[in-house]
């Protein structure tokens, strides 16, 4: 059982990461990752929606038939996002002013429907919520990484405006890395998002290859040992 949860964790964070492996959810990804703070906000909001949709869809999986599942999932996710949007607007208005732009964008994130379809509709409530959480955290990591890379290259700062999102305690993570930096406009504009994402994807492939190579070596080594012992 715990093995299965370890599998889900590894899937969400690395092996099957929404952005780096499945290349899903690129629309919100490229739109908001001009700064690391924006990426963090979008990632957190998406995580909340993914956990909630995992809960609801795995609860209802017994009564939803395969023939109508897609419209029902879309309906559930859309209602969820709208309710989150409305309640944030009413009760945490300052946060909503920062994140408000991104929340409707969550609906366009096909990764949520993807997880509903491929995981939550087939697994227990606990597992589905855990999967939503891990996938969400993996997505958040990807957004923050991409946002940070673009922000450093594009404007020479890191986590600017984090205070608006997290409150005044977060002032210490707002860093100006390069003083008097004129900025590199291309990286901030959408094409820069594609460029940086391309480099990060390439880097992940390289890392995966290296890891696979090491595993292969280990297997070869144990295979060599085998005949000696027998």
């Amino acid at each position, binding site marked *: 059982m715990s093995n299965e949860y370890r599998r889900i964790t590894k899937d969400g964070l690395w092996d099957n990461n929404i952005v780096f492996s499945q290349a899903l959810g690129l629309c919100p990804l490229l739109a908001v990752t001009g700064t690391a703070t924006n990426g963090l906000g979008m990632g957190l909001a998406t995580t909340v929606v993914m956990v909630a949709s995992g809960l609801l869809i795995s609860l209802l999986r017994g009564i939803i038939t395969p*023939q*109508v599942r897609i419209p029902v999932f879309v*309906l559930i996710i859309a*209602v969820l996002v*709208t309710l989150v949007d409305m*309640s944030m*607007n*009413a009760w945490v208005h300052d946060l909503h002013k920062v994140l408000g732009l991104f929340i409707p964008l969550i609906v366009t994130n096909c990764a949520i429907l993807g997880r509903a379809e491929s995981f939550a509709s087939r697994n227990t409530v606990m597992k589905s919520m855990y999967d939503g959480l891990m996938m969400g955290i993996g997505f958040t990591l990807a957004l923050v990484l991409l946002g940070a890379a673009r922000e450093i290259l594009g404007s020479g700062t890191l986590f600017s405006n984090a205070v608006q999102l997290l409150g005044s305690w977060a002032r210490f993570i707002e860093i100006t890395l390069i003083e008097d930096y004129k900025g590199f*406009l291309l990286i901030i504009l959408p094409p820069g998002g594609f460029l940086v994402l391309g480099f990060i994807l390439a880097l992940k492939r390289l890392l995966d290859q290296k890891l696979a190579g090491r595993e292969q070596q280990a297997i070869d080594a144990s295979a060599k040992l085998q005949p000696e012992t027998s």
Partner: protein
Amino acid sequence: MSTPKEPQYRKRVGYQAVLLGGFSTLATALLVAGNIATKDDIKARQKEDLLRSLNQVVPTEYYDSDLLDQPLSIADKRGDNLTVYRGLQGMQVNALAWEVVGKGYAGDIRLIMGVNAEGEVLGVRVLSHAETPGLGDKIEVAKDDWILGFKNHSLVNTSNQQWRVKKDGGEFDQFSGATITPRAIVTAVHDGLIFFQQHTDELLRPPVINSDDEPLQRASLSE
């Protein structure tokens, strides 16, 4: 994972229809409930936001009334209705604020401008824009204090010729690499002042106290 045997009734079209219809009804009910629960709070928050942006262009010492009370609605030269918020001191209109729109490099730039009773600009702020980051976004007060340069300018102390960016022979700076954005704002503010000039009487007329109000009630309110 072994799937439990599917009962026969679930394969019928009727079940699918009821399922889909049921979920749609449920979704609608939830959204209606959510809307009712949050409507008033959202309206209150939006009012606070509006007041906060109005206070950036109309300092509080200019009025002792409720800025959001009885806004005027006047058609501008294009026929669009402008909502003008009035700040009263005693019974005199002492400051006005309204929204103007400039045609920027990347779509509309929404601005709010405040003007005193003599037609001098009290302040201008950008409400929303989509200008290029790093070039045109110096119009935001958080990035640059260029927008503060409009203060105290009026049609009297600045001629029509001077209401332009320096490149076009006027008074106001442009940014290096971005002329269209500041030009749009200068034009929008200038148009705003012309609007004030054309409607001065209407704008400065003190609001009529509703004659339906019973005098007794009014007296008790003023206490």
